Protein backbone atom coordinates (compact mmCIF):
# COMPACT_ATOMS: atom_id res chain seq x y z
CA UNK A 1 0.00 0.00 0.00
CA UNK A 2 2.78 2.44 0.93
CA UNK A 3 4.56 1.84 -2.40
CA UNK A 4 1.68 3.69 -4.08
CA UNK A 5 2.15 6.77 -1.93
CA UNK A 6 4.98 8.38 -3.97
CA UNK A 7 2.86 8.17 -7.13
CA UNK A 8 -0.10 9.75 -5.39
CA UNK A 9 2.05 12.45 -3.79
CA UNK A 10 3.51 13.26 -7.21
CA UNK A 11 -0.05 13.79 -8.40
CA UNK A 12 -0.81 15.85 -5.30
CA UNK A 13 2.01 18.21 -6.31
CA UNK A 14 0.34 18.74 -9.70
CA UNK A 15 -2.89 19.45 -7.79
CA UNK A 16 -1.07 21.99 -5.61
CA UNK A 17 0.42 23.73 -8.66
CA UNK A 18 -2.96 23.86 -10.37
CA UNK A 19 -4.63 25.21 -7.24
CA UNK A 20 -1.94 27.85 -6.78
CA UNK A 21 -2.04 29.20 -10.32
CA UNK A 22 -5.79 29.04 -10.82
CA UNK A 23 -6.49 30.69 -7.45
CA UNK A 24 -4.00 33.44 -8.25
CA UNK A 25 -5.33 34.09 -11.76
CA UNK A 26 -8.88 33.62 -10.48
CA UNK A 27 -8.27 36.34 -7.89
CA UNK A 28 -7.07 38.70 -10.65
CA UNK A 29 -10.24 37.92 -12.66
CA UNK A 30 -12.33 38.53 -9.53
CA UNK A 31 -10.96 42.02 -9.05
CA UNK A 32 -10.98 42.91 -12.75
CA UNK A 33 -14.58 41.86 -13.36
CA UNK A 34 -15.93 42.62 -9.88
CA UNK A 35 -14.72 46.22 -10.21
CA UNK A 36 -15.72 46.18 -13.91
CA UNK A 37 -19.28 45.36 -12.95
CA UNK A 38 -19.45 48.55 -10.88
CA UNK A 39 -17.92 50.65 -13.64
CA UNK A 40 -19.78 53.61 -15.12
CA UNK A 41 -18.60 52.63 -18.62
CA UNK A 42 -21.47 50.64 -20.21
CA UNK A 43 -19.15 48.46 -22.33
CA UNK A 44 -16.94 47.44 -19.39
CA UNK A 45 -20.02 46.88 -17.28
CA UNK A 46 -21.87 44.68 -19.76
CA UNK A 47 -18.76 42.62 -20.57
CA UNK A 48 -18.28 42.01 -16.84
CA UNK A 49 -21.94 41.09 -16.30
CA UNK A 50 -21.86 38.70 -19.28
CA UNK A 51 -18.66 37.04 -18.04
CA UNK A 52 -20.03 36.59 -14.51
CA UNK A 53 -23.41 35.26 -15.66
CA UNK A 54 -21.96 32.81 -18.21
CA UNK A 55 -19.32 31.33 -15.91
CA UNK A 56 -21.57 31.17 -12.85
CA UNK A 57 -24.54 29.95 -14.87
CA UNK A 58 -22.91 26.96 -16.53
CA UNK A 59 -21.17 23.90 -15.19
CA UNK A 60 -17.39 23.96 -14.66
CA UNK A 61 -16.97 20.65 -16.45
CA UNK A 62 -18.89 21.98 -19.45
CA UNK A 63 -16.56 25.01 -19.51
CA UNK A 64 -13.49 22.79 -19.24
CA UNK A 65 -14.65 20.47 -22.03
CA UNK A 66 -15.55 23.46 -24.15
CA UNK A 67 -12.08 24.97 -23.75
CA UNK A 68 -10.33 21.64 -24.27
CA UNK A 69 -12.43 19.99 -27.00
CA UNK A 70 -14.33 22.75 -28.78
CA UNK A 71 -11.84 25.62 -28.79
CA UNK A 72 -9.27 23.74 -30.94
CA UNK A 73 -11.93 23.54 -33.66
CA UNK A 74 -11.88 27.33 -33.72
CA UNK A 75 -8.11 27.27 -34.15
CA UNK A 76 -7.07 27.73 -30.51
CA UNK A 77 -5.30 24.65 -29.20
CA UNK A 78 -4.28 24.72 -25.55
CA UNK A 79 -2.21 22.17 -23.64
CA UNK A 80 -4.17 20.28 -20.96
CA UNK A 81 -2.39 22.27 -18.22
CA UNK A 82 -3.22 25.63 -19.82
CA UNK A 83 -6.80 24.58 -20.59
CA UNK A 84 -7.27 23.31 -17.02
CA UNK A 85 -5.87 26.45 -15.41
CA UNK A 86 -7.90 28.64 -17.80
CA UNK A 87 -11.19 26.87 -17.02
CA UNK A 88 -10.58 26.75 -13.27
CA UNK A 89 -9.51 30.37 -12.93
CA UNK A 90 -12.24 31.75 -15.19
CA UNK A 91 -14.82 29.76 -13.24
CA UNK A 92 -13.65 30.67 -9.75
CA UNK A 93 -13.02 34.25 -10.92
CA UNK A 94 -16.72 34.66 -11.73
CA UNK A 95 -17.71 33.62 -8.20
CA UNK A 96 -14.94 35.81 -6.77
CA UNK A 97 -16.12 38.79 -8.82
CA UNK A 98 -19.44 38.70 -6.98
CA UNK A 99 -17.58 38.66 -3.66
CA UNK A 100 -15.48 41.68 -4.71
CA UNK A 101 -18.56 43.56 -5.90
CA UNK A 102 -20.45 42.81 -2.69
CA UNK A 103 -17.56 43.91 -0.47
CA UNK A 104 -17.01 47.15 -2.37
CA UNK A 105 -20.71 47.95 -2.28
CA UNK A 106 -20.75 47.30 1.46
CA UNK A 107 -18.34 50.20 2.06
CA UNK A 108 -20.51 52.98 3.54
CA UNK A 109 -21.63 55.63 1.07
CA UNK A 110 -20.30 58.39 3.29
CA UNK A 111 -16.77 57.15 2.57
CA UNK A 112 -17.23 57.88 -1.13
CA UNK A 113 -18.84 61.24 -0.36
CA UNK A 114 -15.87 62.13 1.83
CA UNK A 115 -13.43 61.15 -0.94
CA UNK A 116 -15.40 63.29 -3.37
CA UNK A 117 -15.24 66.18 -0.93
CA UNK A 118 -11.47 65.72 -0.70
CA UNK A 119 -11.28 65.91 -4.50
CA UNK A 120 -10.17 62.27 -5.02
CA UNK A 121 -10.63 60.88 -8.52
CA UNK A 122 -12.84 57.79 -8.65
CA UNK A 123 -9.73 55.59 -9.08
CA UNK A 124 -8.11 57.18 -6.04
CA UNK A 125 -11.32 56.71 -4.04
CA UNK A 126 -11.36 53.05 -5.05
CA UNK A 127 -7.66 52.43 -4.40
CA UNK A 128 -7.04 54.45 -1.24
CA UNK A 129 -10.45 54.43 0.43
CA UNK A 130 -12.78 51.61 -0.71
CA UNK A 131 -10.44 48.66 -1.36
CA UNK A 132 -8.48 48.78 1.91
CA UNK A 133 -11.78 48.62 3.78
CA UNK A 134 -13.36 46.04 1.48
CA UNK A 135 -10.42 43.62 1.38
CA UNK A 136 -10.77 42.27 4.95
CA UNK A 137 -14.46 41.56 4.22
CA UNK A 138 -13.56 39.61 1.07
CA UNK A 139 -11.10 37.25 2.67
CA UNK A 140 -13.41 34.78 4.46
CA UNK A 141 -15.48 34.10 1.29
CA UNK A 142 -12.23 33.99 -0.72
CA UNK A 143 -11.01 31.26 1.66
CA UNK A 144 -14.11 29.20 0.91
CA UNK A 145 -13.64 29.74 -2.82
CA UNK A 146 -9.98 28.65 -2.61
CA UNK A 147 -11.02 25.34 -1.02
CA UNK A 148 -13.76 25.03 -3.63
CA UNK A 149 -11.10 25.57 -6.28
CA UNK A 150 -8.83 22.93 -4.78
CA UNK A 151 -11.69 20.42 -4.99
CA UNK A 152 -12.52 21.51 -8.53
CA UNK A 153 -8.96 20.78 -9.70
CA UNK A 154 -9.88 17.08 -9.53
CA UNK A 155 -11.88 17.61 -12.72
CA UNK A 156 -8.73 18.27 -14.78
CA UNK A 157 -8.09 14.53 -14.59
CA UNK A 158 -10.89 14.27 -17.16
CA UNK A 159 -8.88 16.30 -19.68
CA UNK A 160 -5.90 13.93 -19.36
CA UNK A 161 -3.88 15.93 -16.82
CA UNK A 162 -1.97 13.66 -14.44
CA UNK A 163 -3.12 15.13 -11.13
CA UNK A 164 -3.97 13.34 -7.88
CA UNK A 165 -7.41 12.12 -9.01
CA UNK A 166 -5.98 10.96 -12.36
CA UNK A 167 -3.20 8.93 -10.73
CA UNK A 168 -5.63 7.37 -8.26
CA UNK A 169 -7.74 6.28 -11.20
CA UNK A 170 -4.72 4.85 -13.07
CA UNK A 171 -3.49 3.03 -9.95
CA UNK A 172 -6.92 1.50 -9.50
CA UNK A 173 -6.88 0.28 -13.08
CA UNK A 174 -3.46 -1.26 -12.44
CA UNK A 175 -3.91 -2.82 -9.00
CA UNK A 176 -7.70 -2.99 -8.36
CA UNK A 177 -7.06 -1.98 -4.72
CA UNK A 178 -9.82 0.61 -4.85
CA UNK A 179 -10.47 0.95 -1.10
CA UNK A 180 -6.87 1.79 -0.18
CA UNK A 181 -6.23 4.00 -3.19
CA UNK A 182 -9.34 6.13 -2.96
CA UNK A 183 -9.12 6.20 0.84
CA UNK A 184 -5.60 7.63 0.64
CA UNK A 185 -6.60 10.03 -2.13
CA UNK A 186 -9.48 11.41 -0.10
CA UNK A 187 -7.19 11.86 2.91
CA UNK A 188 -4.58 13.71 0.83
CA UNK A 189 -7.23 16.07 -0.53
CA UNK A 190 -8.54 16.59 3.00
CA UNK A 191 -5.03 17.39 4.27
CA UNK A 192 -4.46 19.84 1.39
CA UNK A 193 -7.77 21.56 2.17
CA UNK A 194 -6.83 21.90 5.85
CA UNK A 195 -3.47 23.45 4.93
CA UNK A 196 -5.13 25.83 2.49
CA UNK A 197 -7.70 26.85 5.12
CA UNK A 198 -4.88 27.52 7.61
CA UNK A 199 -2.99 29.66 5.05
CA UNK A 200 -6.14 31.69 4.34
CA UNK A 201 -6.69 32.17 8.09
CA UNK A 202 -3.17 33.62 8.44
CA UNK A 203 -3.83 35.94 5.50
CA UNK A 204 -7.15 36.97 7.07
CA UNK A 205 -5.40 37.88 10.31
CA UNK A 206 -2.70 39.95 8.59
CA UNK A 207 -5.07 41.87 6.34
CA UNK A 208 -7.70 42.13 9.06
CA UNK A 209 -5.46 44.80 10.62
CA UNK A 210 -6.47 47.11 7.78
CA UNK A 211 -10.01 47.26 9.07
CA UNK A 212 -11.32 50.67 10.03
CA UNK A 213 -10.01 51.61 13.47
CA UNK A 214 -7.33 48.94 13.05
CA UNK A 215 -3.63 49.14 13.75
CA UNK A 216 -4.21 47.29 16.98
Amino acid at each position, binding site marked *: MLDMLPTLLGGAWVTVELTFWSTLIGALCSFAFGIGRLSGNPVVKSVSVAYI*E*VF*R*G*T*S*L*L*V*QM*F*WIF*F*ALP*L*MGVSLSPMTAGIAALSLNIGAYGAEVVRGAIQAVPKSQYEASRALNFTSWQALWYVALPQALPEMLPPFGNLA*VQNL*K*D*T*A*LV*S*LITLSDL*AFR*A*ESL*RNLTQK*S*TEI*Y*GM*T*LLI*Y*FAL*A*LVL*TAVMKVLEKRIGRWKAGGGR
Partner: protein
Amino acid sequence: MLFGYHWDLTSNWTFALSILPILLHGMLVTIEATLLGFFIAAVLGLVFAVLRGSPTRLISYPVAFIVEFFRDTPLLVQLYFLYFVLPNYGILLPAFMTGAVALGIQYSAYTSEVYRAGIEAVSRGQTEASRALNLSRADTFTRIILPQAVPRIIPALGNYLISIMKDVPVLSVVTVLEMLNVAKIIGDRTFQYLIPLTMVGGLYLLLTLFASFLVRALDTRLPKRGIPLK
Protein backbone atom coordinates in the same frame (compact mmCIF):
# COMPACT_ATOMS: atom_id res chain seq x y z
CA MET B 1 -27.82 7.72 -33.89
CA LEU B 2 -28.59 8.10 -30.21
CA PHE B 3 -31.88 7.41 -28.38
CA GLY B 4 -33.44 6.72 -31.80
CA TYR B 5 -32.63 10.20 -33.18
CA HIS B 6 -30.44 10.62 -36.25
CA TRP B 7 -28.24 13.63 -36.75
CA ASP B 8 -28.16 15.60 -39.93
CA LEU B 9 -24.71 16.92 -40.85
CA THR B 10 -25.72 18.84 -44.00
CA SER B 11 -25.24 22.21 -42.31
CA ASN B 12 -24.48 23.58 -38.87
CA TRP B 13 -28.09 24.61 -38.33
CA THR B 14 -29.62 21.28 -39.31
CA PHE B 15 -27.02 19.53 -37.15
CA ALA B 16 -27.87 21.71 -34.14
CA LEU B 17 -31.58 21.17 -34.71
CA SER B 18 -31.23 17.42 -35.14
CA ILE B 19 -29.25 16.88 -31.94
CA LEU B 20 -31.51 19.10 -29.80
CA PRO B 21 -33.95 16.26 -28.91
CA ILE B 22 -30.98 14.08 -27.90
CA LEU B 23 -29.60 16.79 -25.64
CA LEU B 24 -33.05 17.36 -24.12
CA HIS B 25 -33.11 13.65 -23.36
CA GLY B 26 -29.86 14.16 -21.48
CA MET B 27 -31.26 17.23 -19.78
CA LEU B 28 -34.06 15.13 -18.35
CA VAL B 29 -31.47 12.85 -16.73
CA THR B 30 -29.64 15.95 -15.45
CA ILE B 31 -32.84 17.20 -13.82
CA GLU B 32 -33.65 13.81 -12.33
CA ALA B 33 -30.16 13.47 -10.86
CA THR B 34 -30.38 17.02 -9.50
CA LEU B 35 -33.69 16.40 -7.75
CA LEU B 36 -32.69 13.05 -6.29
CA GLY B 37 -29.29 14.36 -5.18
CA PHE B 38 -30.96 17.40 -3.63
CA PHE B 39 -33.46 15.25 -1.77
CA ILE B 40 -30.67 13.13 -0.28
CA ALA B 41 -28.64 16.23 0.60
CA ALA B 42 -31.64 17.89 2.25
CA VAL B 43 -32.49 14.87 4.42
CA LEU B 44 -28.91 13.87 5.27
CA GLY B 45 -28.01 17.49 6.00
CA LEU B 46 -30.85 17.74 8.51
CA VAL B 47 -29.66 14.54 10.22
CA PHE B 48 -26.12 15.95 10.43
CA ALA B 49 -27.35 19.31 11.71
CA VAL B 50 -29.38 17.67 14.49
CA LEU B 51 -26.57 15.27 15.47
CA ARG B 52 -24.01 18.07 15.40
CA GLY B 53 -26.13 20.09 17.78
CA SER B 54 -26.28 17.17 20.19
CA PRO B 55 -25.20 18.00 23.75
CA THR B 56 -23.14 14.77 23.86
CA ARG B 57 -19.64 15.45 22.56
CA LEU B 58 -19.22 11.79 21.71
CA ILE B 59 -21.80 12.40 18.97
CA SER B 60 -21.29 16.03 17.98
CA TYR B 61 -17.48 15.93 17.52
CA PRO B 62 -17.30 12.93 15.16
CA VAL B 63 -20.24 14.28 13.17
CA ALA B 64 -18.54 17.67 12.87
CA PHE B 65 -15.44 15.88 11.57
CA ILE B 66 -17.41 13.84 9.04
CA VAL B 67 -19.19 16.94 7.74
CA GLU B 68 -15.85 18.74 7.39
CA PHE B 69 -14.41 15.74 5.55
CA PHE B 70 -17.34 15.57 3.14
CA ARG B 71 -17.05 19.28 2.47
CA ASP B 72 -13.28 19.33 1.91
CA THR B 73 -12.90 16.43 -0.53
CA PRO B 74 -13.76 16.55 -4.25
CA LEU B 75 -17.06 15.22 -5.51
CA LEU B 76 -15.22 13.35 -8.28
CA VAL B 77 -13.11 11.31 -5.85
CA GLN B 78 -16.08 10.66 -3.56
CA LEU B 79 -17.94 9.40 -6.59
CA TYR B 80 -15.06 7.11 -7.62
CA PHE B 81 -14.92 5.85 -4.05
CA LEU B 82 -18.61 4.98 -3.96
CA TYR B 83 -18.60 3.51 -7.45
CA PHE B 84 -15.53 1.29 -7.11
CA VAL B 85 -15.37 0.55 -3.37
CA LEU B 86 -18.98 -0.16 -2.41
CA PRO B 87 -19.28 -3.20 -4.74
CA ASN B 88 -16.34 -4.78 -2.85
CA TYR B 89 -18.58 -4.82 0.19
CA GLY B 90 -21.56 -6.23 -1.63
CA ILE B 91 -23.40 -2.95 -2.21
CA LEU B 92 -24.29 -2.81 -5.89
CA LEU B 93 -26.05 0.36 -6.99
CA PRO B 94 -26.81 1.45 -10.54
CA ALA B 95 -24.52 4.24 -11.80
CA PHE B 96 -27.31 6.80 -11.64
CA MET B 97 -28.08 5.99 -7.98
CA THR B 98 -24.39 6.04 -7.05
CA GLY B 99 -24.11 9.46 -8.66
CA ALA B 100 -27.16 10.81 -6.83
CA VAL B 101 -25.83 9.47 -3.52
CA ALA B 102 -22.43 11.10 -4.16
CA LEU B 103 -24.12 14.44 -4.89
CA GLY B 104 -26.26 14.00 -1.77
CA ILE B 105 -23.25 13.25 0.43
CA GLN B 106 -21.15 16.12 -0.87
CA TYR B 107 -23.94 18.65 -0.49
CA SER B 108 -25.23 17.33 2.85
CA ALA B 109 -22.16 19.03 4.32
CA TYR B 110 -23.37 22.35 2.93
CA THR B 111 -27.06 21.89 3.74
CA SER B 112 -26.30 20.91 7.35
CA GLU B 113 -24.64 24.34 7.73
CA VAL B 114 -27.75 25.96 6.25
CA TYR B 115 -30.01 24.28 8.80
CA ARG B 116 -27.68 25.12 11.66
CA ALA B 117 -27.38 28.77 10.66
CA GLY B 118 -31.12 29.01 10.08
CA ILE B 119 -31.95 27.60 13.51
CA GLU B 120 -29.29 29.66 15.29
CA ALA B 121 -30.55 32.84 13.65
CA VAL B 122 -33.85 32.55 15.56
CA SER B 123 -33.34 34.73 18.60
CA ARG B 124 -32.64 33.08 21.91
CA GLY B 125 -35.45 35.02 23.53
CA GLN B 126 -37.91 32.86 21.59
CA THR B 127 -36.65 29.71 23.33
CA GLU B 128 -36.68 31.43 26.70
CA ALA B 129 -40.20 32.73 26.17
CA SER B 130 -41.39 29.22 25.23
CA ARG B 131 -39.73 27.87 28.35
CA ALA B 132 -41.50 30.53 30.41
CA LEU B 133 -44.82 29.54 28.83
CA ASN B 134 -44.16 25.95 29.87
CA LEU B 135 -43.90 24.53 26.35
CA SER B 136 -42.11 21.21 26.03
CA ARG B 137 -38.75 21.09 24.21
CA ALA B 138 -40.33 19.28 21.26
CA ASP B 139 -43.14 21.84 21.02
CA THR B 140 -40.65 24.69 21.26
CA PHE B 141 -38.66 23.27 18.37
CA THR B 142 -41.49 22.30 16.04
CA ARG B 143 -43.92 25.14 16.74
CA ILE B 144 -41.74 28.11 17.64
CA ILE B 145 -38.21 27.71 16.26
CA LEU B 146 -38.75 25.76 13.04
CA PRO B 147 -41.51 27.99 11.56
CA GLN B 148 -39.23 31.01 11.99
CA ALA B 149 -36.15 29.20 10.65
CA VAL B 150 -37.80 27.87 7.49
CA PRO B 151 -37.98 31.20 5.60
CA ARG B 152 -34.21 31.62 6.10
CA ILE B 153 -33.43 28.02 5.18
CA ILE B 154 -35.42 27.65 1.95
CA PRO B 155 -33.67 30.25 -0.25
CA ALA B 156 -30.23 28.99 0.83
CA LEU B 157 -31.25 25.42 0.05
CA GLY B 158 -32.49 26.64 -3.34
CA ASN B 159 -29.03 28.00 -4.12
CA TYR B 160 -27.50 24.62 -3.37
CA LEU B 161 -30.07 23.00 -5.66
CA ILE B 162 -28.59 25.12 -8.46
CA SER B 163 -25.04 24.18 -7.43
CA ILE B 164 -25.99 20.49 -7.51
CA MET B 165 -27.37 20.95 -11.02
CA LYS B 166 -24.02 22.36 -12.14
CA ASP B 167 -22.17 19.41 -10.61
CA VAL B 168 -24.26 16.73 -12.33
CA PRO B 169 -21.90 16.55 -15.38
CA VAL B 170 -19.30 14.98 -13.05
CA LEU B 171 -21.54 11.88 -12.99
CA SER B 172 -20.64 11.34 -16.65
CA VAL B 173 -17.41 9.64 -15.47
CA VAL B 174 -19.45 6.73 -14.13
CA THR B 175 -21.37 6.39 -17.41
CA VAL B 176 -24.48 8.37 -16.42
CA LEU B 177 -25.95 9.70 -19.68
CA GLU B 178 -26.61 13.26 -18.58
CA MET B 179 -26.46 16.25 -20.88
CA LEU B 180 -22.67 16.71 -21.09
CA ASN B 181 -22.01 13.02 -21.60
CA VAL B 182 -24.54 12.93 -24.42
CA ALA B 183 -22.86 15.93 -26.07
CA LYS B 184 -19.47 14.26 -25.67
CA ILE B 185 -20.72 11.08 -27.32
CA ILE B 186 -22.17 13.06 -30.23
CA GLY B 187 -18.80 14.81 -30.55
CA ASP B 188 -16.88 11.53 -30.45
CA ARG B 189 -19.01 10.11 -33.27
CA THR B 190 -19.27 13.15 -35.55
CA PHE B 191 -16.00 14.99 -34.69
CA GLN B 192 -18.19 18.04 -34.14
CA TYR B 193 -17.54 19.15 -30.56
CA LEU B 194 -18.13 22.86 -30.92
CA ILE B 195 -21.87 22.79 -31.58
CA PRO B 196 -23.01 20.15 -29.05
CA LEU B 197 -20.81 21.54 -26.24
CA THR B 198 -21.90 25.12 -26.92
CA MET B 199 -25.53 24.01 -26.93
CA VAL B 200 -25.03 22.28 -23.57
CA GLY B 201 -23.57 25.52 -22.23
CA GLY B 202 -26.59 27.44 -23.51
CA LEU B 203 -29.07 24.94 -22.11
CA TYR B 204 -27.29 25.09 -18.75
CA LEU B 205 -27.53 28.85 -18.75
CA LEU B 206 -31.28 28.61 -19.39
CA LEU B 207 -31.71 26.01 -16.66
CA THR B 208 -29.80 27.95 -14.00
CA LEU B 209 -31.43 31.27 -14.91
CA PHE B 210 -34.85 29.63 -14.68
CA ALA B 211 -33.99 27.92 -11.39
CA SER B 212 -32.60 31.08 -9.82
CA PHE B 213 -35.72 32.94 -10.95
CA LEU B 214 -37.83 30.31 -9.14
CA VAL B 215 -35.69 30.53 -6.00
CA ARG B 216 -35.95 34.32 -5.97
CA ALA B 217 -39.72 34.18 -6.52
CA LEU B 218 -40.01 31.71 -3.63
CA ASP B 219 -37.84 33.95 -1.47
CA THR B 220 -40.08 37.00 -1.99
CA ARG B 221 -43.27 34.97 -1.48
CA LEU B 222 -42.18 33.46 1.84
CA PRO B 223 -43.52 35.36 4.84
CA LYS B 224 -40.43 36.80 6.51
CA ARG B 225 -41.68 36.39 10.07
CA GLY B 226 -42.37 32.71 9.82
CA ILE B 227 -44.76 30.15 8.43
CA PRO B 228 -47.56 28.82 10.61
CA LEU B 229 -47.20 25.03 10.53
CA LYS B 230 -50.36 23.07 11.23
